């Protein structure tokens, strides 16, 4: 069980209110991702749930029990830190055993869980090593192992993949997703990387300046962003925003069109511009277009075979059915 409920939770550091009153429910077994630019309060929110920071007001309940005043150790949550936070003076085995040792679990049971976790995380050969003798990915797995053996009500991940290189990150992302499928335990995952959010989450919470901008499934956020901020944050490359007469035609202050929803041709189309940079990814080509008369910068995601170069004039046709419309305040118009 691991339902977590935040009720009018606020956090102030001195006179600065980093989290204005906030309500949020994370259902049991859900993979919930907090995403937002740096400084948006997502890590603070996670630390409030963990109990590492005290709330300034409001209530946090875990499985229906008020845990606002409960110390971190007693909340039944396990956390994986960005820096892994392994105990450098202990072997991998002792690191993983530590939470069980604190809980007073008998040694036979400890060993059983350690062996199981080590097997699941490919750490069996490294149990007697110290964290300093492991690679980044292995250390992260030890941190996850240490969290698993506690059999917590929920896992909290604080940007766990930021210190890994790109290839490892993709691998670990999959491992964490698989872990969630297997354990079916609530997971709360903080990241600034919207790709991680999109690929892993059941539910994404988009935060800006401590305020929840939108909560929804990855595809809800992608297809129906509630405002311009969410529209710009979710999706890669970023959505293009157009203001002025072109937007007025659609009866909006601003319209947004995703780079993948624009068709390009060398001959004709309602919009045109000059290619400044074309990035070939093999599967796709990202065209950065200027002189469109629509917006400062404009990005188009085209087929990998497309072969436009710097200085080429191209014509663009948007898919009318997926144009997002926003009013002057940046809110979605349906």
């Amino acid at each position: 069980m691991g339902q977590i409920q935040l009720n009018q939770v606020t956090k102030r550091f001195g006179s600065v209110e980093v989290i204005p009153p906030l309500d949020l429910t994370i259902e049991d077994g859900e993979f919930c991702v907090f995403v937002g630019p740096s400084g948006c309060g997502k890590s603070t929110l996670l630390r409030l749930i963990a109990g590492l920071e005290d709330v300034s007001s409001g209530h946090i309940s875990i499985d229906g029990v008020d845990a606002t005043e409960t110390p971190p150790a007693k909340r039944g949550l396990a956390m994986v830190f960005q820096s892994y936070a392994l105990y450098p003076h202990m072997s991998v085995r002792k690191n993983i055993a530590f939470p069980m040792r604190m809980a007073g679990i008998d040694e036979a049971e400890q060993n059983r869980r350690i062996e199981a976790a080590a097997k699941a995380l490919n750490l069996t050969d490294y149990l007697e090593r110290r964290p300093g003798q492991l690679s980044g990915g292995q250390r992260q797995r030890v941190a996850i192992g240490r969290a698993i053996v506690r059999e917590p009500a929920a896992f909290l991940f604080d940007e766990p993949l930021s210190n890994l290189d790109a290839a490892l990150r993709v691998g670990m992302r999959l491992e964490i997703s698989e872990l969630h499928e297997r354990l079916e335990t609530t997971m709360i995952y903080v990241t600034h990387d919207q790709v991680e959010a999109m690929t892993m989450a059941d539910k994404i919470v988009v935060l800006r300046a401590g305020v929840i901008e939108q909560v929804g499934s990855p595809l809800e956020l992608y297809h129906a962003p509630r405002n311009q901020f969410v529209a710009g944050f979710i999706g890669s490359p970023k959505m293009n925003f157009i203001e002025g007469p072109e937007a007025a035609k659609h009866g909006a202050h601003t319209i947004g069109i995703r780079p993948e929803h624009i068709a390009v041709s060398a001959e004709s189309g309602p919009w045109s511009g000059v290619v400044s940079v074309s990035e070939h990814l093999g599967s796709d080509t990202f065209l950065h277009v200027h002189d469109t008369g629509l917006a400062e910068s404009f990005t188009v995601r085209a087929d990998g075979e497309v072969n436009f170069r710097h200085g080429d004039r191209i014509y663009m046709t948007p898919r009318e059915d997926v144009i997002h419309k926003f009013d002057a305040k940046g809110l979605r118009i349906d």
Partner: protein
Amino acid sequence: MARAVTKNRKIINTAAAWAVGLLIFFPILWTVLTSFKTEATAIADPPVFLAFDWTLENYSVVMERSDYMRFLWNSVIIAGGSTILGIIIAVPAAWSMAFVPSKRTKDILLWMLSTKMLPAVGVLYPIYLMFIELGLLDTQFGLVIVLMLINLPIIVWMLYTYFKEIPGEILEAARMDGASLREEVLYILTPMAIPGIASTLLLNVILAWNEAFWTLNLTAAQAAPLTAFIASYSSPEGLFYAKLSAASTMAIAPILVLGWFSQKQLVSGLTFGAVK
């Protein structure tokens, strides 16, 4: 990356380092040499360096005249006791300042250090009176307390610096893992700070061992440590350089041996955090 150093440069550097090292070591060497001379050779002009009749006479006289073992025992108790007591008090203090600092933490640290700037003699009178009142004069316990207080700022500062090097996230992880404050300090913080704690211990044993002002002023016979033992050979009736040297050598020998064997620990502790 290593900086390129030319061969000549290396030789000059090495020679200079040796010269400085010898210069610093020379007084100790001279004391040790003098302790093996007769009183006459000790004051010979020009001084004799190595070519003299080596004798152990001074040592036997010193051993006969004073109870070396009693002074040694007092030194061990006072230096060891004040250091251990200091560490016990300083660990929680340094912990709270390093991990839950308040607005005034910096000020408190500076204030503690500022007490070291006060000349000790400034508080001799009140402390002496207090010692009389409390019956602590010439007791090991009294000296343990005073030396602990004298060195406490240094112990707290050193531990604070070492604790600061330990990432807070590791302690938070321990908290999440269910460790109580006591378990966090015992199983995580202390083992991680062992090199720092060890060098703090050593440095304070050395400081307390060599402390002369309070040990001389607050003791007479019962609790007098080795500093008083040395001082007893510098008398107004005349200086006995050779015997004084023998006494000094005997007084510094234990701490020298301790320092020698813990050299590695001391260096690694003092440079803790400098190299990751």
